[in-house]
């Protein structure tokens, strides 16, 4: 099955919050109480009640032209998702279409995914919450009414979001980058084509990723490998070792004590009986 993805084009986005509200609407999430905090960005961050937000960055270009860089932030559906790797309970998983799916019933709210994610996306309340590319829509929706596209993509009034086969979108995105370059945006780039196994949500950016608060080169955290691939089996071995050693020693000691005909032998077995009770 070809990998599904969607493409966010920052040069088309107008930051109307349509995707954010449509997402809440479809996923029946609570609106939270917010206050104005010096930006158009609200709620200020992803949360257990918010799967996607618009981030706003205001900068100068050549001292005269202000910049308003808008980024849609949600789970990026990495090709190699750190969160799935970190998840101890199987609540996060990768579907055959490349979507990082969530099964809240399995989530133990440990928060490992939150810290493992290079973008710190998953938010945990009673359970993890993050974008699942509207699985219920993409799996069961009606193509004609476009309820088979994710709610945010469908609702984008500017046409800044597109959903579909990842390879086709990559090709399209390259064209957009070229187009932006032809319009004088020298630094235009496609974010997420290759990093982390290729992101499932790619962004066409007018300026370098840092101007959008994105890590230029996100990687799977090293600690995660140490933890999951090295320490996890080792720790298990150690434990089994400790228990095994104790058991072995017990047999050894038992034989020894029998050999010694230690006079405390009887008491010992009595003590054990009591302990059980």
């Amino acid at each position, binding site marked *: 099955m070809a990998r599904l993805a969607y493409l966010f084009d920052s040069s088309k986005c107008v930051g109307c919050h349509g995707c954010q509200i449509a997402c809440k*609407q479809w996923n029946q999430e609570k609106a939270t109480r917010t206050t104005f905090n010096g930006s158009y960005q609200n709620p200020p961050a992803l949360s257990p009640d918010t799967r996607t937000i618009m981030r706003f960055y205001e900068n100068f270009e050549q001292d005269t032209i202000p910049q308003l860089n808008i980024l849609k932030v949600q789970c990026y559906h990495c090709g190699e998702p750190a969160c799935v790797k970190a998840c101890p309970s199987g609540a996060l998983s990768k579907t055959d279409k490349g979507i990082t*799916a969530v099964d809240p*019933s399995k989530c133990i709210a440990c928060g490992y995914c939150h810290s493992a994610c290079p973008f710190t996306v998953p938010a945990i309340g009673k359970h993890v919450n993050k974008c699942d590319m509207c699985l219920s829509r993409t799996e069961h929706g009606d193509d004609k009414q476009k309820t088979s596209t994710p709610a945010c993509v469908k*609702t984008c*009034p500017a046409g800044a979001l597109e959903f579909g086969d990842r390879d086709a979108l990559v090709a399209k995105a390259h064209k957009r980058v070229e187009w932006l370059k032809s319009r004088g945006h020298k630094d235009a780039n496609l974010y997420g084509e290759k990093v982390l196994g290729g992101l499932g949500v790619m962004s066409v950016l007018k300026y370098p990723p840092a101007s959008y608060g994105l890590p230029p080169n996100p990687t799977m955290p090293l600690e995660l490998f140490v933890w999951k691939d090295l320490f996890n089996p080792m720790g298990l071995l150690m434990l089994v070792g400790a228990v095994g050693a104790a058991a072995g020693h017990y047999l050894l000691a038992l034989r020894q004590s029998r050999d010694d005909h230690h006079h405390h032998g009887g008491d010992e077995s009595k003590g054990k009986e009591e302990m059980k009770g």
Partner: protein
Amino acid sequence: MGTVSRRTFLKLMAAGAGAATVWNGNLAVPAIAAPRPYRLKDTKVSPSVCIYCGVGCGLLVYAKDGKVINVEGDPDNPNNQGGLCGKGSSAYEVYASPRRLKKVLYRAANSDKWEEKEWSWAIPEIAKRIKKTRDASFKLKEGAVAVNRTEALVQLGGASHDTDENYLLAKFARALGIVGLEHQARI
């Protein structure tokens, strides 16, 4: 060993070994995990038009058991092709908001609170006041010209109503002799 004794512990270990198979089965990664069911099965779909700005974005309204359960953009509508902005995306909440007015409310003169009323009370009361204000202020002639108007009764609004209702509002107001007739286009 505290709450779990050694033997029980060992027993549990044995039981666990058996259970682990089942457990691991649960842990196996599912091909698809759809946490929320698709909500639009067996719904009645009817088109509508967004109530906000003048672009005229199409809406599709999904209803089930006499209740609207979802509203989203109409992909066929050439104005929005399925898209809706932040405001438009809140269309469902407009219908479902607990703050919607659901009863006729009346505030008496100098009162500090609303009272809930019935339509059967409100309509005659309003009509009486319209008549009283209109008749008391009605001007039949200005010089020789039949002006037939009242300036003491005014009507405001209309841009949030349907076109057919707008037409009726105009007809209604003019028939009452209202000349102070304005709506949101002016401001």
